[in-house]
């Protein structure tokens, strides 16, 4: 789930912090810059792990602060492909089931990832995921209808339930600000453009053992 990533960066220490130990100031600056931020194509940075190398610090004319090039390692949340994770269902929508890990929210399980596997034992005849039509807008819940010899069982995927899923895909979006657009662009009084999540995961629960934990616990 977590990886250690080596990074290089230049850290600026303002003069009023010169009395502190350089390592402490640098660690604090790096944490301030990276914690809870997504780095493009790397993952969600959690915190600084350690500093591996400090190069010479320079002071530039016009700016009294010192600039130090730092080689360091950072703890990054970046699950590998096909990793199994356990999260909580945040909600359901026509796009699928939204899962959250507490510190990371942008996980989606699309409807087609609960398939009808032909090779399953005969009592898993139908595994169809449908949006419960009887519930009103406020409470949309995905339901797994599976049939056994006794009849169909409806298994609801309620909010707040713990769910085990497999990571099948990830996508990074570059959300850095672009320059000003053309002359007839939206004025400042209009709404801001939709915010895109910089890092999203796509999950799947289409295998035995995946899905709500309560579906698979032996009693």
């Amino acid at each position, binding site marked *: *789930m*977590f*990886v*250690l*990533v*080596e*990074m*290089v*960066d*230049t850290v600026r220490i303002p003069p009023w912090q010169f009395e502190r130990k350089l390592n402490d100031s640098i660690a604090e600056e790096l*944490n*301030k*810059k*990276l*914690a*809870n*931020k*997504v*780095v*493009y*194509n*790397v993952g*969600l940075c*959690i*915190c600084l*792990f350690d500093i591996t190398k400090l190069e010479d610090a*320079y002071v*530039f*004319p016009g*700016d009294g602060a010192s*600039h130090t*090039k730092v080689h360091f390692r950072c*703890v*990054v*949340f*970046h699950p*590998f*492909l*096909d*990793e*199994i994770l*356990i999260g909580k269902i945040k909600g359901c929508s026509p796009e699928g089931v939204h899962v959250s*890990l*507490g*510190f*990371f929210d942008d996980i989606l399980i699309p409807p087609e990832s609960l398939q009808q596997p032909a090779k399953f034992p005969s009592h898993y005849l139908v595994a169809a995921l449908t949006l419960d039509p009887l519930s009103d807008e406020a409470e949309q819940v995905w339901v797994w209808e599976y049939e056994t010899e006794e009849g169909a069982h409806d298994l609801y995927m309620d909010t707040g339930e713990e769910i*085990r899923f*497999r990571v099948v895909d*990830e996508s990074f979006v*570059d*959300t*850095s600000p672009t320059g000003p657009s053309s002359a007839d662009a939206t004025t400042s009084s209009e709404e801001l453009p939709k915010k895109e*999540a*910089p*890092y999203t995961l796509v999950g799947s629960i289409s295998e*035995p*053992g*995946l899905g709500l934990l309560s579906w*698979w616990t*032996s009693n």
Partner: protein
Amino acid sequence: MEVHLSPGWIQTPGRSDPPVSARSSWDDRKDANSALLSNYEVFQLLTDLKEQRKESGKNKHSSGQQNLNTITYETLKYISKTPCRHQSPEIVREFLTALKSHKLTKAEKLQLLNHRPVTAVEIQLMVEESEERLTEEQIEALLHTVTSILPAEPEAEQKKNTNSNVAMDEEDPA
């Protein structure tokens, strides 16, 4: 909650330094695997970090530190609900030594360590092509290794004990 930092926006006046560069990519699995951290290691790191910051005290609540506070709190909350919080370096070492005979990949061993599976279904999820690589006895042996070396949640242990006590009481009158 997450803000995107694009590499290269660090510009120091008068010098063209290389941007923040990260040496990792989704396809680079050989390198990515060598840098994997177990949940227990991250738990230790964040707990130590929290202790350190509590001692130094003064500027925890400044706006710059808020992100670190949030991510540390949420990640600790998540990991504390997993069996990883009861592990120790010795337990992890013992577990990895015991797994040597089973010929599992690094990623599979990491998942077993993080999740502590108790059923064969879970093992099949975490070990690729387990039907071809492991026989039923091997899966049982693997489960036994996992459950005996890695500590479980204390409430789960208690529940198991009370269940077995109830069973014993039922047998007595007979």
